[in-house]
């Protein structure tokens, strides 16, 4: 396998991890975010600074990156999760950009807009695939757990869920923390793959892409998210030769999907439910 193919596999794993995170929040809890690239940035910078400046081994550093994203998400979530609907999405744009701008202007610590070079290339194919599969297994089990059902309940009808005794604000917070953790890990892996990070890699475009991928795969379908994310990564990478047209195609794709299949590739079903259609239809209705 050539280096190019290998790179694509690594990128696919990274994007899938980030998309899984956003899917937990957006697809399963119903909170739309347009600022999750900031958590990737936090993960990437924490890991980069720990490994380069303090010589920490990359495994604990990646976990620290994830935890840093969780910590900041908690601080952000406390006040903002009270906002509903579009207003949380708007706030997340503001917060995401604010985090990016802080990273960009904190010259002494992050080297600002010039970017942070010299990160040890620890994200190999094996490492990316193992982390992805590990997280995917955890995610699918998690979604079937009590907490996963709690998320869906508060998405479908938060009033009813809280009447049933769920603490919906806490459920939303848990979903946010978990999704920030995934994005932090994805960011840390991205840093290790590129050996170089820059605040502009984690701008609003990236955040939009994350949410768009989740919608593309199907809100409330984790396998759809992974499939959608992998598909979009492949399309974007193989069109790199015609780079001018790449973004044009991406934009067209977004609009076309929204027009013709707003429910996404799989809707809210998981991929294995497609093979037993009758059952899943009954479950839907």
């Amino acid at each position: 396998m050539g280096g190019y193919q290998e790179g694509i596999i690594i990128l696919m794993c990274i994007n899938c991890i980030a998309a899984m995170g956003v899917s937990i929040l957006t697809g399963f809890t119903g909170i739309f975010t347009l600022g999750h690239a900031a958590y990737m940035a936090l993960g990437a910078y924490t890991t980069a600074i720990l490994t380069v400046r303090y010589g920490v081994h990359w495994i604990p550093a990646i976990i620290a990156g994830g935890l840093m994203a969780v910590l900041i998400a908690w601080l952000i979530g406390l006040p903002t999760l009270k906002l509903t609907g579009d207003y949380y999405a708007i706030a997340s744009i503001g917060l995401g950009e604010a985090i990016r701008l802080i990273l960009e202007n904190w010259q002494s610590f992050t080297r600002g807009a010039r970017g942070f070079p010299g990160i040890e290339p620890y994200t190999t194919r094996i490492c990316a695939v193992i982390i992805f599969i590990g997280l995917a297994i955890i995610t699918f089990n998690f979604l079937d757990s009590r907490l996963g059902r709690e998320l869906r309940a508060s998405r479908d009808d938060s009033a009813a869920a809280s009447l049933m005794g769920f603490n919906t604000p806490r459920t939303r917070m848990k979903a946010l923390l978990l999704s920030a953790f995934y994005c932090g890990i994805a960011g840390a892996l991205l840093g290790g793959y590129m050996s170089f990070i820059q605040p502009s890699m984690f701008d609003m475009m990236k955040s939009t892409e994350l949410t768009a991928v989740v919608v593309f795969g199907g809100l409330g379908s984790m396998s759809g998210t992974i499939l959608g994310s992998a598909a979009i990564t492949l399309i974007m990478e193989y069109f790199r030769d015609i780079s001018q047209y790449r973004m044009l195609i991406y934009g067209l794709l977004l609009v076309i999907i929204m027009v013709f299949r707003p429910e996404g590739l799989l809707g809210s079903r998981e991929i294995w439910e497609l093979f037993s259609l009758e059952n899943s239809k009954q479950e839907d209705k």
Partner: protein
Amino acid sequence: MQQIINGLSLGSVYALIAVGYSLVYSILLFSNFAHGGFLVVGGYACYFLLTQWGYSVPVSMAGALIASGLTAIITERLAYKPIRERTTTTLYLLIASMGVNIIIENLFVVTVGGRIRALPQNTFPTGIFKIAGVTLSASDIISLVTAVIFLTMLQIFLNKTRWGLAIRAAACDIRTAGLMGVNVTFLISLVFFVAGILAAVGGIFLSVRYSLYPQLGSITTKAFIAAVIGGLGSLPGAVVGSLILGLAEMLTAGFISSQMRDLVVYSLLVIMLLIRPAGFFGKAVSEKI
């Protein structure tokens, strides 16, 4: 004082753009991120009419306004209308509008290239006045005056004409307005046309003030924030929010540092959302998703 004048002048440009956002939001309840694209279309149309085809300044500007307005209508028809007919979730419209923005931006990258252009120097009268120690440039005054003219015209249009009445009715409740005999499809096109025109005016000013390039539309994020601060869907809110934002930006740039201005803008947005999510003049919001 100098910074206040600069802030007001920048704020007036934001106001033109923010009012377009608010207008669309008041009818369709979604944030049209393609607005930046309309602005870029206006800027480029003006540039090409002036330089390539050699039209006079007023004709070029009129052409730019119409080009933007038509782009807005076409966007609405091709992208938003089919989505509106299928679903009521505004998030799909939001994502589609981001897609449209990317398309427009990159259409220009592909066709005319990404390089930075400048509108000819003589587009606006240049000149600098000094009044009581404050430097006023002609373009600052023009942008202020034009913003006031266009916003007044919009206000008259909304308050005195039949279609303005229909738009206000639809902003209250678009379904009922439709039942009362308002041609909603036409009305939405009209709203997009007006929003496109306002975006083009903003686009021309921005390309004179800074320069013209395909990503110029990203500046509308600021106008969008201004609209949120003022209260999405409220036109006076959009104007007030824009002026606040313009002032905040210029005062930060003048007294703290120019790198901090964006940070201040985004912090303002977040603080505003936390204190009063509906903005200064917004309607109370209810859960939509």
